[in-house]
């Protein structure tokens, strides 16, 4: 093992509350770094590509496995539906109904079927797209509209991670399983918040998730100057470093509304994002 810590890092940008500026931070950070891959794991509402305008060179369908019942072999014993923890199978006296959108693809039904009447087929839940823009390699997922489960698609996006690159992950809002899947096995998490009661409340829940997962974290305060000082007080009390403040600025908001990453128009910010990166490297 080399003594020096490896130079490359995997950093997730998360928030709890939506609309605090995750994508803004993730994209501007990626644009400030070299040799970088950006993974947009907000597969329900991916937005990184809107700011990056990449040229897409690959679109791959993503599938999950769902059961198929052979009615010739099935004797309607009901063991599969009894086993299924997700209510994805319903057995009536002369028919079996499968609810594919509830299925977690655990494979249990096929295992328990005494007649070997269950096989599995692939079912598309979305796509993974790969592209490049301004020196950033972008991978993002797009969940099909009406599809409930984001986690398998998030895993498919993360499977595209390259070990010879710095990686920035743009996580979805919320603090549930989608966040956990996004932040799993990353070196550090940047929490983007705003100095408002909503920002603070959701920050606290997200900090708890990261503590449970053992992922080190720091905070970026976006729209600094709005709201109150309670987020700062909380971070100080909890010993969470405030890595950067992005001021509330009409110019930044206006650039975002047009889909322009602000480091493109305000290049002095690249330095600041590089500083955070180095700062995190030192803390590790």
């Amino acid at each position, binding site marked *: 093992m080399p003594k020096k810590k490896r130079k490359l890092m995997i950093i997730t940008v998360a928030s*709890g*509350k*939506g*609309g*605090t500026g995750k*994508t803004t931070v993730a994209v501007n950070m990626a644009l400030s770094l070299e040799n970088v891959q950006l993974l947009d794991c*907000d597969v*329900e*509402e991916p*937005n990184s590509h*809107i*700011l990056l305008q990449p040229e897409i060179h690959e679109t791959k369908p993503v599938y999950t496995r769902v059961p198929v019942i052979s009615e010739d072999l099935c004797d309607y014993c009901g063991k599969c539906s009894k*086993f299924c*923890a*997700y209510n994805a199978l319903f057995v009536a006296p002369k028919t079996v109904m499968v609810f594919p959108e509830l299925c*977690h*693809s*655990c*494979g*249990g039904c096929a*295992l*328990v079927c005494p007649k070997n009447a269950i096989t599995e087929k692939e079912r598309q839940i979305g796509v993974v797209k790969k592209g490049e823009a301004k020196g950033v390699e972008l991978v993002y997922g797009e*969940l099909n*509209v*009406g*599809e*409930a*489960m*984001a*986690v398998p698609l998030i895993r498919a996006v993360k499977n595209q991670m390259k070990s010879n690159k710095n990686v920035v992950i743009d996580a*979805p*809002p*919320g*603090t*549930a*399983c*989608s*966040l*956990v899947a996004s932040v*799993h096995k990353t070196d550090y998490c940047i929490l983007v918040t705003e100095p*408002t*009661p*909503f920002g603070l*409340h*959701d920050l606290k*829940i*997200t900090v*708890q*998730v990261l503590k*449970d*997962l053992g992922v080190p974290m720091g905070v970026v305060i976006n729209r600094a100057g*709005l*709201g*109150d000082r309670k987020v700062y007080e909380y971070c100080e009390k909890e010993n969470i470093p405030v890595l950067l403040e992005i001021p509330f600025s009409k110019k930044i*908001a*206006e650039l*975002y*509304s*047009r*889909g322009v990453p602000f480091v493109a128009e305000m290049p002095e910010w690249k330095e600041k994002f590089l500083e955070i990166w180095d700062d995190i490297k030192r803390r590790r």
Partner: protein
Amino acid sequence: MMVKEITVLSGKGGTGKTSVAASLAVLAQKTVLTDCDVDAPDLHLLLKPEVLETQEFKASRVAVIDEEKCVQCGKCEEHCRFGAIENLVVDPVLCEGCGVCAYVCPVAAIELEKRVSGYAFISKTKYGPMSHALLNPGEENSGKLVSLVRKNAKKIAEKENCELIINDGPPGIGCPVIASVGGVDMGLIVVEPTLSGIHDMERALGLLNHFKIPSLVCINKHDLNEENTSRIVEFCGSNGVEVVGKIPFDQIVTESMVAGKPIVEYSLESRVSKAIAELWKQTLKHI
């Protein structure tokens, strides 16, 4: 009496769902309010509910290996599709509670234990009864908890003779959003005039169409980018969706949030409050 139900959603997070929903709660009469954003709920910060009843939410299970019985055959690890068992240790974060490991274990060393995934609350506020919840950090099953919140709301509505349920929805278009909009009478989308906001609104509208739910759109902070606001109006026009309101950008909304009050209560005379009152008037025509 039929109870009507309306869900405020957005696709993109942070467009102002909760600020709008809290104000509608003040304006609407005989209404039950819910917060369907169960993993990052904020509505209670404005409505200040007094909790009357707390219910444990036990929807998920987690595999537990009895080390004394385990013969280390590794079958559980081999069959787990979630990568949740590594070196015969269960990672409760990755475990989805399917039970395959327990089924394949030859010595019955694995049990599935029910775990509390969160809590549902029935509360009262000065604006009416409220049904809400809190998912434990990092949990799954947010959709099921949303369903419980809505079920509780319906019960309260019938008991208290309320005519309307207003749901404050979560961001995104996945599991908890689907649970928030299934079978409602109207989806009210709050959009901001940014390219991301428009992109996400289109997907949220797609979701409502997919489930055949009528939709309305309201543009928040419309003056932040009038060009994008026109694009939203045009898009909605050509897709047969009515734009029922345009709310201006004003820092007074943040002020009211810091004060812990819905904006229409904090400053009834503000232009934001007037826009929300007009939005509600237009929305009522459709429900």
